[in-house]
């Protein structure tokens, strides 16, 4: 999932300071699952904004709503259309993709991010999320025992460990295991240590922003079929 966390309140309050009616728009996708932008967080943030504005003597109205998936236009449009006229600004609690989807669909509408989007990762335990994938577009996990060196090695090395690890930990932090030592152990367990001798090609970096296209899925205009 995409993992995000709420921005510091100070930043959110500054962004929204000049608005009287705020639509706090959650997302039912990743940010619900990572506890940053679901219905509960929408309520919490709305309450905090109202409390802050109340004590400043500048009361504010909040509207709370949720899109099923804020990165899906069809999920966003009806929610915002329905609430039309009830808000001056959208405070999105989706990832960066959700915020931009809203901004693209409603180009005349101010849309602010309430979250910082951090990474693609997993829930390591309840309340702890860990970065696992950098979305490099060129996956090599089959050769690395299911551990991504591009993401989990601080230097993203492809040819094995640098000399910087000490006691199994990365040179950048004692809390970070050396990904290549983890890969070593994983491959050893799978009896695939020989993989470490391979010399992978230098990664070809994609041009950003990248696109993925499935022609078979695209809605082709009837005239083109003829």
């Amino acid at each position, binding site marked *: 999932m995409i993992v995000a966390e709420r921005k510091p309140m100070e930043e959110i309050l500054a962004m929204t300071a000049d608005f009287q009616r705020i639509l706090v728009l959650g997302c039912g996708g990743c940010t619900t699952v990572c506890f940053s932008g679901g219905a509960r967080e929408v309520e919490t943030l709305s309450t905090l904004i109202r409390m802050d504005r109340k004590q400043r003597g500048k009361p504010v109205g909040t509207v709370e709503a949720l899109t099923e998936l804020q990165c899906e236009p069809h999920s966003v449009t009806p929610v915002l259309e329905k609430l039309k006229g009830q808000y001056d600004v959208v405070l999105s609690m989706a990832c960066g993709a959700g915020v931009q989807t809203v901004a693209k669909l409603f180009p005349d509408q101010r849309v602010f991010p309430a979250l910082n989007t951090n990474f693609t990762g997993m829930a390591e335990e309840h309340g702890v999320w860990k970065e696992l994938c950098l979305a490099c577009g060129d996956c090599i996990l089959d050769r690395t025992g299911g551990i991504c060196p591009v993401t989990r090695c601080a*230097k*993203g090395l492809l040819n094995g460990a640098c*000399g*910087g*690890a000490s006691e199994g930990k990365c040179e950048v932090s004692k809390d970070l295991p050396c990904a290549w030592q983890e890969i070593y152990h994983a491959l050893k367990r799978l009896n695939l240590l020989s993989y470490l*001798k391979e010399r992978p090609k230098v990664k070809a*970096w994609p041009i950003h922003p990248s696109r993925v296209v499935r022609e078979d899925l695209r809605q082709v205009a009837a005239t083109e079929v003829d």
Partner: protein
Amino acid sequence: MSLRQALESGKFVVTAEVAPGKGTDVEHILKDADIIKDRVDAINVTDLQSSVMRLGSMAFCHFLTEMDIDPVFQVTCRDRNRLALQSDLLSAWVLGIRNVLALTGDHPVLGDHPEAKPVFELDSVSLLDCIGKLNSGVDMAGNELKGSPDFLPGAVVNPGADNEAAMDLQIMKMEKKIEAGARFFQTQGVYDLDAFEKFMKRVEGLDTKVLGGIILLKSVGMARYMNKNVAGVFVPEPLIQELKASEDKAQASVNMAVRLVKGMKDLCDGVHIMALGWESKIPPILDEVGL
């Protein structure tokens, strides 16, 4: 004799290392180099070591060539993508630099600009590949060069890895570096000759030259600091006690280095002495061991 010739001759090779400073003042470091000029086969120039922003290696290497010293141009992958790396290598060649030491490099977070974007588009192995390509007259994209270099590529290895996984990974990577064209290795600082002997046993038969790393131990504090903070460097307690007990620390450090060089003469193909400003101590050490 150039480093290449020295290595090919089969003699016991001696290299040293200098680090450019922060700023444009180069005088005293050139003086340090001058002290050892006639005693070593080559001098490495570090590339923003510990990720601290400094004067670059290439310019300094160029100064050394003008002093008739054969420099080893250290190149890390930390802060240049493949365009910059290839371009710098070509530039180095035309400035008279003939030896390159390919390193991955420290992460920027360890240095004085911790928020710098780490690049690491290549790593030490793919950088060696890249040097090989340039030597063969093409760039990484396969385009032909008009005039090509003929570098002597080298690499590093850390014989002091602290666990089996780390050690296996070091050796596998060393093999990959040889495949990728590394002709010589300089090692991380060694203090424990027994451990080094074991390491050399494991890499016996690899077609390359190994120069054992020696870091002059300047103080007890430095020993403790390295034990705690420098991956793969381990100063055994008896050495620390020896230094602690001695009245003339500098002499004790020289004595230790002499023992290490003597020990390495039977184990590897040369030594790489990192004097860290004590370049004046290198000649007495070499005198003592007869090099």
